[in-house]
């Protein structure tokens, strides 16, 4: 890798909150552009170049056009990094994956939902499911979160620049919660996804802010065996029950597993 690698940002279906978290690095963003050359960042700049080594992709893949664009990004980049839960495993967009698509379009568009069946209405050519980037192309690394944590983003970039491996932590959010000395959400009578959600980047921020973990960073690897079983046992909840309790972020992942790699997905 050259001394100042070229990086580019691309967004698909999402809220652009992850890109915003990068802008929210404020002064540290100026430090970042000292060590990398940003050649494309549509949310913040007009320039664009197809010459880049590292591509960050945000948002989930929901249309055939998204796939074309993603494949182009893949062929240009040496390293593709999914930022945010939408890009990493479908995220909140995948709530609709468990709903009947016809109903989904009608709820949002009323009688105009017929457009989704019209081959001439290209803008409405939408997949029935929201999927992550890795369902279509190889993705080297992920920075999950909804939104991502700026600190974890910096750590990831730093590791890559130094030739290291920014692999994800593999402990549940419960561990971070203990470190933050939070009162357990189960103790407060809430259902919390901390025991089966991947920690290591958010400092259990939602529990610390007085709510519960909603599972935004996705399933921890092997949640069935390794999840924080003491917590679950103590409160008489099984991993499966917990998995079924919430489908906010996991509709795609529940089907494909936490470490799902690229696979044949019907387009």
């Amino acid at each position: 890798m050259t001394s100042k690698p070229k990086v580019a940002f691309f967004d698909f279906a999402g809220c652009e909150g992850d890109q915003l978290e990068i802008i929210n690095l404020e002064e540290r963003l100026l430090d970042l552009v000292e060590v990398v050359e940003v050649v494309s960042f549509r949310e913040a700049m007009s320039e664009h170049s197809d010459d880049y080594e590292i591509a960050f992709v945000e948002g989930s893949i929901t249309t055939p056009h998204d796939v074309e664009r993603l494949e182009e990004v893949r062929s240009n980049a040496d390293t593709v990094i999914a930022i945010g839960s939408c890009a990493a495993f479908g995220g909140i967009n995948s709530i609709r994956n468990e709903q009947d698509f016809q109903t989904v379009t009608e709820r949002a568009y009323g009688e105009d939902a017929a457009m989704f069946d019209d081959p001439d209405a290209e803008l409405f050519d939408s997949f029935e499911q929201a999927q992550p980037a890795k369902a279509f192309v190889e993705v080297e690394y992920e920075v999950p979160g909804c939104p991502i944590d700026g600190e974890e983003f910096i750590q990831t970039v730093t590791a890559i620049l130094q030739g290291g491996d920014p692999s994800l932590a593999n402990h549940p959010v419960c561990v971070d919660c203990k470190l933050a000395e939070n009162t357990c959400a189960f103790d407060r009578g809430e259902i919390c996804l901390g025991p089966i959600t991947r920690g290591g980047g958010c400092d259990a921020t939602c529990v610390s802010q007085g709510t519960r973990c909603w599972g935004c960073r996705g399933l921890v690897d092997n949640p069935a065996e390794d999840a924080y079983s003491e917590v679950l046992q103590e409160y008489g909840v099984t991993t499966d029950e917990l998995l079924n309790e919430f489908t906010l972020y996991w509709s795609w992942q529940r089907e494909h597993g936490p470490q799902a790699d690229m696979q044949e997905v019907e387009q």
Partner: protein
Amino acid sequence: MSQDIDIEGDLVTRVEGHGEIVVNATDGQLEACEWHVVESPRFFESMVVGRDWDEIHHIVSRICGICSVTHTMTGLKAVEDAMGVELSEQDVKLRKLALAGETLQSHVLHLGYLALPDLVGAKSVVPMANTHEEEVRTVIRLHKLGNELIETVAGRSTHAQRTIPGGFSQLPSEAELRDLRASLEGSWNDVETVVDLVLSLADELPEFTRETEFISLTDPDEYALYNGVPYSSDTGELDLADYREIVNEHVVEQSTAKFTKHNRDSYMVGALARFNNNYEQLGPMATAVADRFGLKPVCHNPYLNNVAQLVETAHLIERSIELIDSVLESGLEAQSDYHKPDVDVTAGQGVGAIEAPRGILFHEYTLDETGTALEGNCVIPTNQNHANIQLDMERLVPTIIDQPEGEIEHTLEMLVRAYDPCISCSTHYLDVEFVDTLPER
């Protein structure tokens, strides 16, 4: 001079979400002039169905990262309206404070990072770090101030957690509020610097006016952002319960794109609409900023939306200081760190409206007796500005049609950016193109 123009389908940069401008002319004759939205549909109206009353705000927050506080709170207001939940005065003040932080953050982001490069002739804020280092650092400090405001009150700047139905799960401490107040007081020099910069570049803002209707919230007691009723500059106060008749989404024949209209063919929402409708209620610092630009209501130049944002930036700082003072004066009533307001879950239908940074935002939810959502509807500001952008373009392009194509494109991009369209939150945006000129995306 009659030229052929073909501005076709590059994504407009430095806006949130995906939009394209299409202009075609042959021999100086305008053939097409269209503003397209090409965001992938995300179906939030369906995503909330079947979800619990205390999850809805969490989901709809993800409509937009930049105005997630507004979406969260508009969702909460609609749910609270449906179930008849009342908030304490203190909680309302704190929500207003978080909202002020978000609007401040968003305005500074838009002005400083997205629009300013146009005025200094740069492609982005990155090269400006070399040519205008001090100004860029100032913009960054102000942006950070907005985020600090949100973090202190709501816990996290994007998709904050503490605002929940009925109030807050957790409150800031008095000490934190005092620190925040000091940062706000300390920011006036920075505001001054940005005002000076924009003032020195104000000649770059195109002179273009087209009379239009302005819709925003209005409130007898204050410059309306969190509370208030819908108000039209043409027809006066409106009923929130009739919001569907206010926005009046419809398909127009000549364009096939879904537009909104109220009293005329289009209306404008956002900072300029609020400025025009509620000018008298701005704080003294904000009014002074407006005076320096000679900005007075009613202003019909959409490019001056950027100046209205600057005026509001000053207002938001003044207002936040007032809100903190008011909370501290009555003594912050503490609550537990894992507070859950007492909410009686009931069936009902509720509507909420809040001024998002980009304009009035409506959410509506229908809940069954267990508090599960049966239906949802969100009408976002960008959606409402679409027709106004389109009509501005139709009026503007013939007046600049002899300019080089690059100039025309630049002027139109600036127009779109002035509206600060937040296209990624196009929850049920309908932009249908049957004609062959559908641009390559």
